[in-house]
């Protein structure tokens, strides 16, 4: 557990950053849609921990998580949210298009499922050129309702491409619960239909298990496609900076259940060091924001 502590604390930092962004967003100075990853940070540091060698990641619109997981530059990210030329996309993309080529975040595409073929192309190119590069497609349960996912799974399996499909199933597409959109609640069934090896963990699992599953799935995807379903719960609204506990299909009881078991909140509440780290990171992020806002 002690070995994992520094990674757990990275998750705590990501929570602080996202909450600080949420706080400042209300000032109306970040004038782009934001899709916060609050509730979905706990596993992100373990992704980077287990990546060996070169990686090319392709995210959905909820791109803060993958940007932070790959340790993209924080200041560049914040600058991008404010639409500045000093942002990671020179102000061209905002929150939904985050990328940092230096750390392997190749693209984030807000159109649901749209970045999946890009990850496939990366894997295809790597395999044809015999380069040892891992390609990661990161998407949500909503993308599993897009036909292009099935096309990509089919091709990756048939051609044995080195690609890891990471589907973070947070139960919601905007405010619509999974049960209204799909006849079953697991996403691995799509990969199994394409004869792709599957893995799963949830926010209720221990960090040790999460680390292990991520390690196994990444190792597996270096030689053949793998599909990892991560079961999380988004604690903020689909798009914006507010908590939406009674919007759409959410109920108070459901929200309370997941909020109570949120692994990052538990860590902050139980470990004074983590709490101090949270406070420090939160303030540092607020300070970055304020320094930018002062110039706007």
């Amino acid at each position, binding site marked *: 557990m002690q070995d994992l502590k520094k990674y757990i604390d990275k998750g705590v930092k990501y929570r602080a950053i996202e909450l600080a962004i949420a706080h400042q967003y209300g000032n109306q100075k970040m004038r782009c849609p934001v899709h916060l990853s609050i509730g979905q940070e706990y596993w992100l540091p373990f992704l980077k921990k287990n990546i060996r060698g070169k990686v090319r990641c392709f995210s959905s619109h909820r791109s803060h998580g993958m940007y932070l997981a790959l340790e993209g530059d924080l200041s560049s990210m914040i600058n991008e949210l404010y639409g500045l030329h000093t942002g990671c996309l020179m102000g061209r993309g905002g929150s939904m298009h985050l*990328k940092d080529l230096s750390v392997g975040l190749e693209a984030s595409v807000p159109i649901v499922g749209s970045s999946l073929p890009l990850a496939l*192309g990366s894997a295809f190119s790597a395999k044809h050129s015999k380069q040892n590069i891992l390609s990661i497609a990161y998407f949500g349960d909503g993308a599993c309702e897009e036909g292009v996912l099935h096309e990509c799974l089919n091709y990756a399996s048939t051609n044995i491409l080195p690609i890891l499909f990471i589907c973070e199933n947070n139960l919601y597409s905007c405010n619509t619960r999974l049960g209204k959109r799909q006849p079953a609640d697991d996403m691995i069934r799509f990969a199994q239909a394409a004869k792709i090896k599957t893995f799963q963990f949830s926010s209720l699992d221990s960090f040790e298990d999460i680390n292990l599953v991520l390690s196994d799935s990444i190792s597996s995807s270096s030689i053949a496609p793998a599909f990892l379903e991560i079961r999380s719960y988004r604690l903020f609204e689909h798009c914006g900076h507010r908590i939406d506990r009674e919007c759409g299909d959410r109920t108070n009881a459901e929200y309370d259940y997941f909020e109570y078991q949120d692994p990052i909140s538990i860590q902050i509440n139980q470990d004074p060091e983590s709490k101090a780290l949270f406070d420090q990171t939160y303030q540092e992020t607020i300070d970055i924001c304020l320094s930018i806002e002062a110039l706007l």
Partner: protein
Amino acid sequence: MNGLSHAQTILLCTDNYLKSHPLNVLLCEGVSDGFYSTIEGLSLKYPQQLYEIPCSESSMIGMALSASSYEVTTLVCLQRVEFALLAVEQLVNNSAKNSFLSGNQRHNPCLFRFVIGRGWGQGPSHSQSCEVIFAHIPDISVLMPVFPADSKLIYSTFSSLNHPSISLEHRWTHYSFDTCASKSNTSLTSYIIAKGKHLTIIAYSYNVLLANTVADELHKFDVSIEVINLFNISNINYKLIADSIINTGLLILLDLDDRSFSVSSEILGKLALSDQLSCLRKPPVRLSNHGVYCPSSPALSTEYYLKSSEIAQAACELLDFETERMNMLVGRIAILEEAFPADVPNQHFTGPF
């Protein structure tokens, strides 16, 4: 490459493309089927570089767009353009946008060969050439080759561009041969295929061949027609057009697809905005196919497609030909048109598409 047909030239160019670098790849549904003889035998010659693709146009086109920004260069062949409509999302959202967002650090030169056609092999689901749909997307070259040299230029250039290229390849142009003018063109833009001083015809794709037929016949009546092959509709040479109509004072524009929101609309709009239509002695004429969708029946499709004789009639009217002279000319062209069935490009064509 002198003496080779357009299809033979494409085969040779594709061979050279694959031979030139092992990281150059080709993706095609039915990769061993020859693709209208334009990749015949290449799956045996370059088995490591030719990839079979499933009926998954959206992911395959997205994959090709992406792969070309990394280690490989991709060339994708689709049997008809309408299949590419399943991938419009990828073309719109991921064509050159990733390069824009990365500050030009992710160039993705790649080539899509989408086939269009006429007559036998077409039908309601294969009615349109869709060039305007693709031309609306920023940073895609939309090329419409007519002659072997056009495709040769596409192949020699596309991989040095920063963005994707689409070649809308008319099935009936596969039988064309080069002219002196087509061989002397050196850039991916419009060029004059026949010089003239009495009338300008602007055309692209197969319609250039129809215009050439009319120009040849009118030449026998001491009328010279300037025919402009637009070639690259996303990079039209407007100065060439303006100079031509100043010289001739008369203009016919031929659209391959429907006339609303069309290539001719764009050209006329640009010329009007820069007051370059005022040199015309008569209002410009534009022609295209008749009706909305192409019927499958050979008899009905004859009525659908634009014919050389119609272009000739429009030309005669603009040139104030006397009725008798006009009838004689149009009649001569009609005889040429009726030499073999209207739904095939030549008497040797036996289908199926």
